């Protein structure tokens, strides 16, 4: 390894360690390591100012393909501003929806539809969790769904833990179905130039087949916990969906903007609008229609997460420019012996194993250049490797309480309601479901693409 590779690897490993230790804010860690990558690796070791310019990727804003894609696939390196703009826009939209009471209204409305009966609520909330997570980040989905679940479970005389665990799994599964469902997918799609339709017709099929298996799995796993203790609550004590709406006007606008976002995302391959354009438009429309609330929405924007992504992209670009990730690609090539089945299996199961214990966002960002190299070197279809990476990172994270952000939020809400979830409890339910989905995904990818 040359000095630049050693420095890049050291910075990256320190970044990962600091992210795990959580001693400093995540965005502080990635930004500092990104800066170290620019100064030490590109500046001092490589003496290559053009690498710094490429890594910061500001020029992408003036490229027409950043805003409008005329069909050609363009892969990007460095800071993926498309991802940043899209996430920022969706954050503003979700904040607007949350403040109008949309999520709480939806959850209670569905629960009321099934007369607040535990088993139907259990199944319906799993499906709702997966469906919402296809378009909205799973953290937000679980934040609202788990809170309503805990409230309803208390009224029904149930432990909320089984319901919340099933919802978490389905949120991660639903997120894997689309390009905008999970951050790794946004990064994969934006970096490799895939559309919403590409994802839904590939990872979406895997997620759908998996849902058909996972819903009965969780039902049978938790069926004994769905019997209420006592005589059950008085029906009049259950919340009314109408009370969840804080502003009728805001609620109507939120529903409209959400519907527009879904339409724009579903049709973006046809319209040519990139996710950056969609994110920016949705964010701006939300702000314009929010009136006096616009300032509050901007204030609530999760800048820390956006900065985390920016720092992360720079840090990963250091590994990419120095050719360090090519070494990782060569290792995968060596282990697989050039056998494409083994290579795909390594990517799915290796990504899943890594994502079960470390943040899947930096992992996915790191692996994109690796699969790109593997595709070029071995002549394997890049899309096949991309779907393998997407499914591995999205689903693997479900196996442990720390594997995905939704898991942390869901188990935290359960604990706040007096039901702490241990690793044992969590993994007993989720790990077999994770393995089941990974087996299904591996089989589908082998049969369909290889």
């Amino acid at each position, binding site marked *: 390894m040359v000095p630049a590779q050693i420095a890049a690897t050291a910075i990256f490993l320190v970044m990962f360690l600091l992210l795990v*230790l959580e001693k400093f804010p995540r965005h502080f860690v990635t930004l500092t390591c990104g800066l170290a990558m620019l100064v030490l690796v590109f500046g001092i070791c490589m003496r290559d100012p053009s690498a710094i310019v490429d890594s910061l990727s500001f020029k992408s804003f003036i490229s027409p393909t950043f805003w409008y894609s005329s069909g050609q696939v363009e892969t990007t390196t460095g800071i993926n501003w498309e991802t940043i703009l899209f996430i920022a826009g969706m954050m503003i939209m979700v904040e607007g929806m949350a403040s109008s009471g949309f999520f709480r209204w939806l959850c209670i409305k569905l629960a009321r539809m099934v007369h607040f009966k535990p088993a139907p609520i259990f199944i319906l909330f799993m499906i709702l969790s997966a469906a919402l997570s296809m378009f909205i980040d799973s*953290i937000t989905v679980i934040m609202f769904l788990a809170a309503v679940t805990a409230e309803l479970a208390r009224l029904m005389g149930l432990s909320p833990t089984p319901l919340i665990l099933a919802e978490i799994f389905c949120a991660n599964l639903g997120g894997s179905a689309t390009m905008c469902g999970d951050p790794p997918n946004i990064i994969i799609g934006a970096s490799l130039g895939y559309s919403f339709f590409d994802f839904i017709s590939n990872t979406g099929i895997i997620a759908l087949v998996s849902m058909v298996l996972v819903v009965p799995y969780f039902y049978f796993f938790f069926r004994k916990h769905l019997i209420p203790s006592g005589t059950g609550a008085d029906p009049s004590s259950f919340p009314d969906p109408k009370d969840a709406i804080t502003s009728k006007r805001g609620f109507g606008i939120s529903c409209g903007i959400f519907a527009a976002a879904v339409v724009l995302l579903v049709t973006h391959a046809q319209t040519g609008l990139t996710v950056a354009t969609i994110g920016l438009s949705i964010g701006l429309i939300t702000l314009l229609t929010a009136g006096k609330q616009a300032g509050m929405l901007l204030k609530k924007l999760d800048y820390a997460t956006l900065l985390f992504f920016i720092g992360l992209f720079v840090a990963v670009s250091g590994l990419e420019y120095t050719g360090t990730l090519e070494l990782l690609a060569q290792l995968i090539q060596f282990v697989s012996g050039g056998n494409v089945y083994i290579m795909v299996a390594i990517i799915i199961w290796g990504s899943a194993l890594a994502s079960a214990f470390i943040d899947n966002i930096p992992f996915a960002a790191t692996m994109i250049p690796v699969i790109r190299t593997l595709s070029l070197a071995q002549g394997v279809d890049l899309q096949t490797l991309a779907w393998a990476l997407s499914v591995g990172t999205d689903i693997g994270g479900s196996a442990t309480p720390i594997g995905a*952000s939704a*898991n*942390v*939020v869901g188990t*935290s809400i359960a604990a*706040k309601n*007096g039901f*702490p979830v241990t690793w044992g409890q969590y993994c007993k339910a989720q790990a077999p479901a994770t393995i089941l989905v990974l087996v299904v995904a591996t089989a589908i990818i082998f049969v369909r693409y290889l």
Partner: protein
Amino acid sequence: MEKQLIISVSREFGSGGHEIASELARRFNLPLYDKNILEQIACKHNLNIRRLEPYDEAPKNIFTSRNVKGFSNSPEEQVAQMQFRYLRAKADEGVSFVVLGRCAEEVLKDYPCLVSIFVLSDIAFKKERTMARDNTSEEEALELMARADRRRKYYHNQHCRGKWGDSRNYDLCVNSACLGIGATTDLLEGYIRSRLALM
């Protein structure tokens, strides 16, 4: 008692900190908050206390825990935060009390009525007390003391800026082996009464 008074007692295992805190609570006629905080939280929110007890004053494992936007998957963290909220709420209500451990010297540091105490002791003193109380061998007592103090230190330092047992974080640090439990309590009572007079 008209003036609000909060006494926080942190302690080394075997130093007699619990005994001192109980006696101070009796002498000042104040409630003592220790593990009973969880009982009160469980009772108030209709929770099962057996689910919460294993995480009382326990450090989280940093390799099996993660924080996302203020949410943590660690039950230890959740239980600690429940107790911190409870203590702050009581302090805000103007209630006077004695609290044992639970990072109270930092959690309640903004309340001028707080008197924070750390009780330490000589190893021999702690060992004798531990052997007598838990009916253990010398080796077992030393092991138990080391393990309990390590656990308290990690728990404390995960939640506080100041380090556990660092004299700069407490109003008074006292070695209970020098005067014994009774006389140490007398000393502390005098100190607290002097502080109370100045409040």
